[in-house]
């Protein structure tokens, strides 16, 4: 086993273990903290995939913004559940069954795919760099329209979130 594989296995165990804690932890605040650990594990996987930019974006956007939003939301709605009583609904065995079936089905489907065990190609001189990704995002013959739509979506989401959470003055 190479060092790379060992690091991958550590990251995988951290990510999956933290993800399991996210869905089983009774206290929502603790689930949010486990979510941060799971997101860090995914950031480590991006590093292993030679996608350092995505590791940074993962830390900044997911951990820096999204996880903090979760913690705020969990604290603002804390009284509602009091963290007592069952945190799963009555149908949780069926949910676990569906999750297991989906995993087995995905694994079975993927294992019958010809390139399932493909190995990573080496980086060549003409491999696109981060600069080219940035250029492609604003280039008219590449991804400028999805990029602009994503910007509009973010603005709309921000306005919508403000409108939805704004306290009504009585």
């Amino acid at each position, binding site marked *: 086993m190479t060092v790379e594989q060992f690091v991958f296995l550590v990251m995988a165990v951290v990510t999956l273990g933290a993800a399991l804690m996210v869905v089983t932890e009774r206290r929502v605040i603790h689930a949010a903290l486990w979510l941060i650990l799971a997101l860090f594990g995914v950031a480590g*996987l991006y590093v292993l995939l030679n996608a350092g930019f995505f590791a940074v974006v993962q830390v900044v956007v997911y951990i820096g913004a999204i996880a903090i939003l979760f913690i*705020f939301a969990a604290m603002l709605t804390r009284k509602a559940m009091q963290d007592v009583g069952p945190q799963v609904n009555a149908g949780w065995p069926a949910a676990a069954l569906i999750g297991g079936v989906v995993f087995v089905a995905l694994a079975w489907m993927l294992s019958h795919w010809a390139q399932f065990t493909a190995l990573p190609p080496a980086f060549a001189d003409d491999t696109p760099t981060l600069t080219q990704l940035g250029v492609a995002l604003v280039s008219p013959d590449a991804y400028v329209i999805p990029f602009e739509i994503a910007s509009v*979506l973010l603005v*709309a989401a921000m306005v919508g*979130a403000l409108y939805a*959470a704004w306290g009504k003055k009585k």
Partner: protein
Amino acid sequence: MIPLSWYLILAAALFSIGLYGVLARKNAVAILMGVELMLNAVNINLVAFWRYLDLQTVAGQAFALMVFAVAAAEVAVGLALFIAVYRRRGTVAADEIDLMKW
């Protein structure tokens, strides 16, 4: 050298865990956390496919960036909705938010 299969199996497991969280959790905030896990699994797949099969283009990375933007928008709107629901009804338990249930 890590085969592509390791990443795919990991992403499938992460997706299934997130799916279980979405289906089983009572607290609406925790349900959104499950959605985040599923989006992360998709992003691992996109970046892994880019690295292993499509290294000469930027399509995989561009798609993954779009997923980041959509995830951020989804969390902002979702959590704002749950805070509004909490203000009006005093609960974020998904089985008690049944006003629109026929």
